[in-house]
Each structure stands twice: as structure tokens, then as C-alpha cells.
């Protein structure tokens, strides 16, 4: 796996003038130049990002109350679940609570859009070209028919750093977290990663 340096989601756009203003607010002589402070700040910030992204693990940031479906469920049921909860993807579990697949909006787009590309706009294009606008064909299919399988999963101790790399490489927006016995224990989404980068985890 190619490891890239992650760009922080939170800007480090501190200027020397910001530093100067901060120094003015502090009483007393500070034996550092604004330029040097800025240099130290940027290094320290990167250092903190690296440290936190490697030490914060899936278990700390995952959502544990996961909405899921089974292979045999109808797509209508799955779509209603996603609509009701305002989410764009669901893990697919078997009776032992192992993750056997992922069902997401992209899987629906794949079936509905023209040229098998996964986006809502491709669906609109197909509609507007009068090639059929409905999801009727999906009425008789189950989750297992269109889900993505095998699913990408991570362990509870996978670091945020690795998860972000996975999102980037596999172009996915969520990943189920499994425990030591391969059962679903939670789910991590892109927005959970962003929150962790803004260091809101205590």
C-alpha cells in the first residue's frame, strides 16, 4: 500500500501578522521572533497531526449504532432505511453479524445510470435522454443482487491515518469496523475522519 502524506483538513494558514497580534496580547517579553514562532508552529502542527492520526484508531471514532441490512432484504427496504436515517451506505450482514458486503448509493447509480458509471448525474443524463428514468428494474432485486462484495473493512485498532489512505485509494466514503471475531462493531465515515483531524477527539 502506497502511504502518502496527508494534507490536513484544517488550514495551517497562520501569518506572521497573526503571530504578532498574539504576541501583543501576551504580557511580557517573548524571546522569539514572529518568523521563528511561525516556523515552530507549522512543524509542531504537522507533528501533532502525524501523532494523532497514527494514534487515534477506528474504535475511538467509529459510530457504534450501525444501521445494516441482510442479503435477502429488498432494495426498497434498504432504500427506505437509508432515506430515513439520512445515510448513503449500509453494511450488509449475515446471521452471524459478519460483514458480507456494502450497499451504497453508488450501487444504485450503477444499475440505473447510463454507461454503468456510478453517479447521480449519470442517472439524470439517462433520464433526460429518454432512455428510462425509473428504478422499476430494481423492484424485484435484493440487496445481495447489487451490493459491492467482498467489502473493504478495517479492524478496531486500525489508525485514522490508514483509514484515510483506504478511503482515498478505494474511493469509498465509509468502512465497516470489525472486531477480532470478524463481527461488525461499528462504522467510520469520511466525516468522522474530518472531525478527528480537527482534533475534536478528547
Amino acid at each position: 500500500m502506497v502511504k502518502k502524506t496527508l494534507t490536513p483538513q484544517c488550514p495551517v494558514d497562520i501569518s506572521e501578522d497573526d503571530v504578532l497580534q498574539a504576541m501583543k496580547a501576551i504580557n511580557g517579553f517573548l524571546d522569539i521572533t514572529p518568523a521563528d514562532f511561525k516556523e515552530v508552529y507549522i512543524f509542531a502542527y504537522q507533528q501533532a497531526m502525524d501523532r494523532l492520526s497514527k494514534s487515534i484508531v477506528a474504535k475511538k471514532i467509529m459510530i457504534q449504532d450501525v444501521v445494516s441490512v441482510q442479503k435477502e432484504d429488498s432494495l426498497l427496504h434498504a432504500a427506505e432505511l437509508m432515506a430515513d436515517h439520512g445515510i448513503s451506505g449500509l453494511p450488509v450482514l449475515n446471521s452471524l453479524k459478519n460483514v458480507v458486503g456494502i450497499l451504497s448509493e453508488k450501487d444504485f447509480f450503477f444499475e440505473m445510470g447510463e454507461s454503468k458509471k456510478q453517479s447521480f448525474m449519470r442517472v439524470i443524463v439517462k433520464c433526460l435522454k429518454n432512455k428510462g428514468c425509473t428504478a422499476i428494474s430494481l423492484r424485484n432485486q435484493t440487496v445481495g443482487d447489487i451490493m459491492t462484495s467482498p467489502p473493504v473493512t478495517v479492524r478496531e485498532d486500525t489508525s485514522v491515518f490508514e483509514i484515510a489512505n483506504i478511503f482515498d485509494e478505494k474511493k469509498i466514503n465509509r468502512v465497516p469496523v470489525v472486531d477480532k471475531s470478524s463481527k461488525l462493531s461499528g462504522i467510520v465515515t469520511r466525516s468522522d475522519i474530518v472531525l478527528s483531524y480537527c482534533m475534536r477527539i478528547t
Partner: protein
Amino acid sequence: MNREFGTMTYFNKMRGVTKSPPQVSLAEMLWSWIGAFVGMTPLAYINYNYLIESDLVLIIGSFGASAVLIYGAIRSPLAQPRNLIGGHVISALIGVATYQLFPDALWIAAPVAVATAIAAMHATKTLHPPGGASALIAVIGSDKIHALGYLYAIIPVGLGAFIMLVVALIVNNIPNSRRYPEFWI
């Protein structure tokens, strides 16, 4: 919300809140040594070979302190040219003035000179620790220094600081890892 003043709060402030900064590299130690050696040599050479018999001096205690800053802590705001020259000259003038105000009460002149020099350096953004020494030396003298009067601010103080500055500009910029100064103004 103000806490009430209590003895514990006051002494708690003395506890210290952080760690000392990291040790510098071997290269830094080496270049500090080189800079200080090259910087002090002209002052010592001229002083001991030409000025002993004269009314002038070129080497005073405060230059040892300046060497620490301008060769050993070159990124510090206290080590910059403005601070070096401004701090020394302003403090020297204050020192001489204070001595001439209290020539028979050096026990007053000394603290007044140092304290006023500090305040003046703060006010002019020329804070330079050796400046306090220059002010003090103007008061405690040697007699030779007392006899210089205000010339003290030029020789040894101004000239010595200037020579040290030139050496600092040359030597500090030789290694890739160093640059000097951080600012002029």
C-alpha cells in the same frame, strides 16, 4: 473572575510551567565558538597591544555577554543588530549620566543605572542583556572609564559593538544551517 490573593497563588507562580528548550547541535556549538573567538580577538588584540598605556579601552565585560547572544543565540530577538548596537549605546549613555548624577553614591547610581537602562531599552525595542552590563560598568568603572565621560558610549561601547557585529555578519552566515540577522529594523 479574579481569584483572591493568597500566599499559595503567589508562590505557585514560582513552580515553573514548562521544560527548557532542547540542546543545540554540535555544529551550533562549534560555530558559536568560532564566532565568539573571531569576534573577541580584534577587541582584545587592540586593547592589550595598543591601548594599555592610553586613556582608552576597547574590551569591557559586557562584550563577553554580547558574544553569547550574537554568536551563540543568533535567532534570538535580543541578539539582532538593532538590539546589539542600540542596547549598548543607549545603556552606556544612561550609565554615564547616572554616574555623573551620583558620583559619590555609587550604591545608588549602580541600581538606578541598570534599572533605567532596562526600561529605556524596552521603550526603544533595543532590549539587549549586555546593555545592562554596559550601564553598570559606566558606574563601577575603572577610573579610566569614569574619565572617559560620554566618550565611553563611542569607545569602547559603540566601536566594540560595531566590530563584533561585522564579525557576526561574516561568520554567522558561513554555515548552511545558519543565517544572521533575523531583522534589521
